């Protein structure tokens, strides 16, 4: 019985193989690239992917959009399994070193012409002298202000001229006048009240350095005098001067409050310009540069989304074609139109100059060229950010600044130790 059925199976296999030569006549199976992308609205994802599909019709794209809150954990699992899946993934630029050190990013140095990109974008994409992620967007926070509230308080608008930017000291004086507890009105808020991204420049403005140059030591850096001074200042916004609303740790909330006229001055990312205009058309607002300390220099944060290639991909040729397409001038212009992050390609700034003639874009361009400092490059950036973020959160609610920073520095040192090997 068994023998018979085996024979039947063999016969079947032979018949099937006889049919094989006919296969090339049918359509070639497409190569499928699996892409993990940020959970942006579909209208900002599909046009980009469709553009690639049109350019490379023989490549099938399977795109998974993951909500922001879980994208890093999801990538940890998917990459941690060390399989060829996904082929392409969206990569938060400061995590470049972390992924590269663990073998999750293909070295893209031979495939990218660094000269086409802005300096800060290439810095954010590099680890140990090689480019591991393809820059796809940059970022730059600015100071938004509510014109009506400033006028009512008799405060001159902060100048849009980067050379005359407000100091933090000037900002606090204005914020005090703009704060009115009876009306639930606050003078100032950061969009990200606890995230190192937006708050590192405070200390860097005073000469602080975020991490040792080799990327493995936080003690002596984030607990140094400039950090203590900067974050003591930040703490007073909440505890002494009471000009900032405490506890708005979700970055969307301060923007909502600004839109509702409850916050007068807001340091926030450029993408909020469109959000505020669309959602709160009645708010009349202006834009000024990110402040600096009176005795310090101007420093701004930068870095945003990059694209990474899984080195285990079975389709390196197609994956690199994807990168090439996404780094093209045309696609980056399309991306800017869909989601106005500061561009990373010099050609977009040059050829699309008309779009950048507004106050905001003039400021952004200057910052990216002169004051932008990427977050520290370290394989342990996730740990660094998590620990520092908790410390900053505690500081806003009144924790002892020096002690909190020193404890955080020691914890970070311990975490970074494991990457030294």
């Amino acid at each position, binding site marked *: 019985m068994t023998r018979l059925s085996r024979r039947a199976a063999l016969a079947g296999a032979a018949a099937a193989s006889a049919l094989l030569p006919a296969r090339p006549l049918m359509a070639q199976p497409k190569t499928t690239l699996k892409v993990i992308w940020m959970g942006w609205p579909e209208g900002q994802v599909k046009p980009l992917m469709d553009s690639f599909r049109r350019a490379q019709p023989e490549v099938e794209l399977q795109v998974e959009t993951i*909500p922001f809150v879980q994208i890093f954990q*999801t990538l940890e699992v998917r990459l941690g399994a060390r399989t060829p899946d996904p082929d392409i993934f969206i990569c938060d630029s400061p995590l470049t070193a972390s992924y590269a050190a663990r073998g999750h990013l293909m070295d893209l140095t031979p495939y990218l012409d660094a000269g086409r990109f802005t300096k800060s974008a290439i810095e954010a994409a590099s680890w140990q002298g090689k480019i591991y992620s393809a820059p796809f967007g940059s970022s730059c926070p600015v100071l938004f202000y509510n014109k009506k509230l400033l006028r009512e308080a008799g405060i001159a608008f902060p100048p849009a001229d980067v050379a005359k930017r407000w100091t933090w000291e000037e900002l606090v004086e204005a914020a005090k006048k703009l704060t009115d507890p009876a009306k639930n009105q606050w003078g100032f808020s950061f969009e990200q009240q606890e995230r190192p991204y937006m708050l590192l420049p405070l200390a860097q403005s005073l000469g602080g350095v975020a991490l040792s140059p080799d990327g493995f030591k936080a003690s002596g850096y984030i607990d140094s005098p400039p950090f203590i001074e900067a974050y003591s200042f930040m703490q007073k916004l909440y505890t002494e001067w009471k000009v900032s609303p405490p506890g708005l740790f979700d970055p*969307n909330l301060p923007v909502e409050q600004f839109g509702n006229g409850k916050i007068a001055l807001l340091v926030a990312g450029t993408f909020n310009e469109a*959000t505020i205009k669309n*959602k709160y058309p009645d708010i009349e607002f202006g834009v000024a540069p990110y402040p600096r300390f009176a005795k310090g220099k101007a420093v701004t944060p930068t870095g945003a989304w990059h694209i990474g290639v899984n080195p285990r991909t079975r389709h390196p040729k197609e994956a690199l074609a994807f990168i090439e397409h996404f780094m093209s001038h045309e696609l980056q212009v399309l991306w800017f139109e869909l989601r106005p992050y500061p561009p990373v390609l010099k050609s977009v700034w040059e050829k699309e100059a008309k779009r950048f003639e507004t106050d905001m874009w003039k400021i952004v361009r200057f910052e990216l060229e002169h004051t932008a400092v990427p977050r520290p490059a370290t394989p342990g950036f996730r740990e660094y950010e998590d620990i520092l973020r908790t410390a900053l959160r505690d500081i806003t609610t009144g924790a002892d600044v020096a002690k909190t920073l020193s404890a955080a520095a020691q914890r970070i040192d311990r975490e970074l130790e494991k990457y030294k090997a």
Partner: protein
Amino acid sequence: MTISDLRRLFVAFVRYLALVLVATVLLLPIYWLVVASFRPAADIFATSSSVSLATLVPERLTLDHWREAWSGELPRAVANSLFVALTTAGLGVLINSLAGFAFAVFEFPLKRVIFAFVLATFMMPFESIVIPLYMLVRGLALTDTYAALILPEVASGLVIFLFRQFFAAVPKELYEAARIDGASWLQIWWRLTLPLSGPTIATASLMLFVHQWDAFFWPLVAAPSQERIVVQVAIARNVTLEVANWGALFASASTAILLALIPFLLLQRFYLRTITAASER
């Protein structure tokens, strides 16, 4: 009315007052969430910086957020979640009760050790097993299928424990009598013990259902395509780092809460009874 009556009345009053206070504290955020889903976008946070009557009672009402939520991926997500949660609950009751039955009725080598392992599974954080689990599911070519969402959640240490506790309390003589009458062990499980364990089945299905209804991280990892979207993922998609569609977020979250309440309200008396009974044994 005697003094002791008065005292009893006073104690009851204080007790109810405390319960009302606790219930208010627990329910107020949910009330706010549901009400916020009916407020126009600009009003949602306009009154939230201090608590006043306007925080609780909306001035203007709109159905826009509900329309928006329901015209997007929410209906598909609700259908997927219902399918996944109900299938898991159904399969889970069968599989876990069989395991619980074996632990309660049979003697076999290393029974205690194995049972300890079963208990350990529900104390282990999911994050610690997610990478090997993903590799396993990928190895079985199940990624992005309903099976990837359902199978890993069917066996549950906690539910096995509940069934075991219940079956262990059934007098041994009952099983022996059935054996003498010629029933197989499977027949005894199916005909004798399962019909007795209504409350445990209700509790187990509720636990499995709610667990799957709340599933968020695993579906993102194992079955991330649009066709397999589940309800918690659909809710989270309303928020990115830079833009939050609060209205649609609150409308879809309200939907998820209200739907999950239905089985809970239907089965809650069994739920409480089983949990208390299992802990007393």
